[in-house]
């Protein structure tokens, strides 16, 4: 975004930052700028009469500058004197810049130096179009497709013998296809059947041996067909082999990279979407390279050779054909996309029918208990009807296409024959065989033409897919290990947070200036509302993210200086979302410590209170669990993940709502086991229920990203703050229950 020159000229002072807004006060679209200098904030907006109208405010008069989010629009609000007001309105497109502006104003008001925010490009610098994905800055139009192409080709290197064979096979196929009309037209009719003696001589046969010649010709024709068939089989085998191999290699690279990437990478993208995209992208790329690229050459070749041959046979007829062929091409290009749109519509209708069926099957109990069967039936009927309509439309369209396309084809054929016969009768050097050959070539022209009309799109799409995959492969992990990490010898488990500030998005800190000292071997409890920043705090200790300001030290060493291995070995987390991997119970418990023997696994499970329910499963510790195995309840999963942490035997144990989804009795069991567990380690426990934190040596209350209360149970109780309130509420709630 560029600030207009006249605005620059009007402001004498140095411009620190400017943000665009796009709404007028009355809610219509209209551009304007908010400009920040060292002392003032200017608002320039478009007005009907003059170019710009202007307001300016002294920074020191502005209080509580804030960006307020509405639905689809936002306001920059402020208090000036006693008057609250909004300065400008803008849509979400301007939101990012405005937040940066707000931060800038705050910095200046605090007397700090203005830190210019990093320029976030949202539009492609070349063509000015928005990046479809602001995180992956790829402009599908302007990216260097050539470079991407060569990089993809690298993947085929391993299979170069197969690839070259494939290309050669394809070329041979098309050459044989070129010969075919010649054999079955000119040679059959004009040479053999017409009794051309010169032809017999040229292939070394005696006079009158036309039967032998015919036999030879038929044999050649059969041989051609057989070779074509063999080539087709070869093609199939090679393709299958290569496609599977290349897709496997690509996915392997992508997943290997994904493993290294920081949590923030996955946060900024939908994980599910990411997976399917990786899968379908890899398919699309190889699809183009195997079914597309080799044929480009072939079709260009076929087209030129065919043209040359045709021109040599009869140039007048060739020109006529050339005039009509584009019509066919046009029909194809114009009508085909419509059928695709129809297919998209059918797909959506199908999905809605499936959803409706799925709703009814999985939600059968709800439907029945509210007696809504008839309503569900009518809902199903309506989506089913839409599906039927979509299907009929497709059938209608397809038939329509076939008729039009086929009709045009027939017209071309007929005109070729008509012209041919005209030349034949007019004695212009045309013979029946030549005519048949010519007609054969005409029909062969259509393939390359149709193909070439699709290639540009196909190529662009596959290069786009490739670029997206490479983007993941090239992504740099945000959390990076130091080159020479400091080893953590004989860890004690002393944790210090020193003025830590952190936020997932710039300008929206989740933790503000948090300082905390957790002594080795102590248990500390963290309390606070959901969204207060508790989980973020512990995520930082295990270095899922890096702090933006301040530092976190374990035994006096900054976590950024530790090796990832040391850190993971010594810090374990039992979190609120426990993930069970595909595998047996034992494998899941020994996840962090695959070398553990069965005794260790059993002891860990026992300590976590998991042993008994595991023993109730048919195959005990060898029972398959995870996505394809036996389903576990929330409490069971949680106990398995606790056992996992116990077996990992870390110096620092983090329990993030570890007992939130278990019943009271189980919680007691886990509490008991935790008492064993916390001995000799530093424990950080987050909980909603205060009863979970009974054994904590020290408690902190987190509110809005800040530590508001800290102390022992007794101290906090006396304080009468949030802790006290919570305690009252929970003891009372329990009293009602019991």
């Amino acid at each position, binding site marked *: 975004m560029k600030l207009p020159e006249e605005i620059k000229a009007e402001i004498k002072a140095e411009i620190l930052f400017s943000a665009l807004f796009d*709404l007028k006060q009355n*809610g*219509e*679209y*209209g551009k304007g700028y908010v400009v920040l200098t060292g002392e003032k904030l200017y608002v320039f907006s478009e007005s009907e009469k003059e170019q710009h109208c202007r307001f300016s405010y002294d920074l020191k008069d502005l209080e509580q500058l804030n960006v307020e989010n*509405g*639905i*689809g*629009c936002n*306001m920059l*609000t402020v*208090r000036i004197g006693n*008057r*609250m*007001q*909004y300065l400008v*309105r803008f*849509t*979400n*497109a301007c*939101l990012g810049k405005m937040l940066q502006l707000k931060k800038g104003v705050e910095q200046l008001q605090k007397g700090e130096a203005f830190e210019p925010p990093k320029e976030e490009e949202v539009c492609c610098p070349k063509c000015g*179009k*928005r990046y*479809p994905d*602001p995180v992956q800055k790829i402009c*599908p*139009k302007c990216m260097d497709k050539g470079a991407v192409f060569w990089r993809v080709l690298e993947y085929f290197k391993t299979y170069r013998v197969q690839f070259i064979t494939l290309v050669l096979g394809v070329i041979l196929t098309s050459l044989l296809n070129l010969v075919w009309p010649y054999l079955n037209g000119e040679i059959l009719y004009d040479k053999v059947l017409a009794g051309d003696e010169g032809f017999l001589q040229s292939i070394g046969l005696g006079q009158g041996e036309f039967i032998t010649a015919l036999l030879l010709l038929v044999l050649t024709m059969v041989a051609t067909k057989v070779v074509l068939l063999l080539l087709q089989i070869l093609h199939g085998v090679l393709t299958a082999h290569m496609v599977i191999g290349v897709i496997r290699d690509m996915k392997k690279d992508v997943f290997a990279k994904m493993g290294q990437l920081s949590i923030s990478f996955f946060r900024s993208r939908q994980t599910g979407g990411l997976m399917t995209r990786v899968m379908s992208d890899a398919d699309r790329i190889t699809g183009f390279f195997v079914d597309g690229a080799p044929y480009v050459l072939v079709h260009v070749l076929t087209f030129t050779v065919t043209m040359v041959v045709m021109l040599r046979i009869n140039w007048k007829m060739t020109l006529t054909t050339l005039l009509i062929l584009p019509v066919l091409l046009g029909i194809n290009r114009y009508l085909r996309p419509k059928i695709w*749109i129809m297919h*998209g*519509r059918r797909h959506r209708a199908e999905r809605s029918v499936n959803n409706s069926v799925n709703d009814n099957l999985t939600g059968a109990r709800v439907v029945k208990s509210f007696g809504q069967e008839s309503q569900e039936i009518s809902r199903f009927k309506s989506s089913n009807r839409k599906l039927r309509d979509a299907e009929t439309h497709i059938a209608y369209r397809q038939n329509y296409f076939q008729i039009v396309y086929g009709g045009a084809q027939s017209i071309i054929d007929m005109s070729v024959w008509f012209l041919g016969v005209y030349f034949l009768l007019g004695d212009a050097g045309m013979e029946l065989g030549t005519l048949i050959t010519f007609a054969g070539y005409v029909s062969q022209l259509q393939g390359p033409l149709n193909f070439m009309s699709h290639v540009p799109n196909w190529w*662009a*799409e596959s290069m*786009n897919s490739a670029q997206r995959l490479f983007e993941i492969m090239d992504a740099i992990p945000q959390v990076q290990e130091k080159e020479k990490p400091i080893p953590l010898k004989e860890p004690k488990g002393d944790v210090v947070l020193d003025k830590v500030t952190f936020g997932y998005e710039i300008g929206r800190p989740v933790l503000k200036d948090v300082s905390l000292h957790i002594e080795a071997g102590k248990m500390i409890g963290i309390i606070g509302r959901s969204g207060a920043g508790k989980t973020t705090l512990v995520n930082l200790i295990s270095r899922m993210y890096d702090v933006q300001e301040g530092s976190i030290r374990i035994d006096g060493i900054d976590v950024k200086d530790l090796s990832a291995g040391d850190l993971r070995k010594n810090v374990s987390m039992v979190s609120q979302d426990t993930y069970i991997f595909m595998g047996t119970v034992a494998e899941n418990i020994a996840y962090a410590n695959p070398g553990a023997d069965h005794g260790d696994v059993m002891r860990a499970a026992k300590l976590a209170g998991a042993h008994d329910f595991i023993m109730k499963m048919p195959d005990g510790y060898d029972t398959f669990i995870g996505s394809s195995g036996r389903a576990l309840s929330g409490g069971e999963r949680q106990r398995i993940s606790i056992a996992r942490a116990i077996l990992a035997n870390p110096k620092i144990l983090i329990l993030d709502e570890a007992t939130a989804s278990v019943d009271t009795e189980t919680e007691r069991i886990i509490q008991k086991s935790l008492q064993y567990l916390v001995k000799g380690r530093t424990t950080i426990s987050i909980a909603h229920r205060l009863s979970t934190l009974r054994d904590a040596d020290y408690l902190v209350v987190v509110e809005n990203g800040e530590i508001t209360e800290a102390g022992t149970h007794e101290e906090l109780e006396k304080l*009468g703050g949030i802790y*006290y*309130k919570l305690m*009252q*509420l929970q003891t*009372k709630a329990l009293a009602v229950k019991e």
Partner: protein
Amino acid sequence: MEEFQLEQMEQETEAMLRIRYLKDGDAVFEKVGNGFLSLCLGEEYYPRVNVVRMFPFSDSQKFISIRNAEEKQEEIGIIEDLDTMSPKKKEMLLEQLSLRYFTPVILKVRNIKDEYGYSYWDVVTDRGECKFTVKMGGKSISHLSEERVLIMDIDENRFEIPDVSKMTPAERKKLDLFL
């Protein structure tokens, strides 16, 4: 002190469960500053309130929730129907709503270009001309009813087409890909 605390909490909980309808006579709204509204309700005074729709799509003029703009944003009361309010109050409330909700209505579709999984729209709305980018597939286009369509661009700006069947055939053709 303990008893008092508990009582207060009990009250808060009860206030959360209570439904309070605001009548024209009781509620005194007043403009404060530019774009803000205060509410005086008997002895209660709220320096700034938010006006929020309960059914923004299906019933935009009824069931309006008046909420405290302070941190907890608790509900102060509900206006069942904006028409029961005096014209002046209604105007104030509508202004608040227009500041909070921004969904331009697409009047004319000039061009939609779809390319590489994203579509680039060029439209005329009731708020002026606009160009925006929509991600294809997924949840960008939602059907509020058979004919009413809500479009969400990549910045989560919203656009509405109240009745697709009233668009011209040429426009419908451009929209075909999405319906």
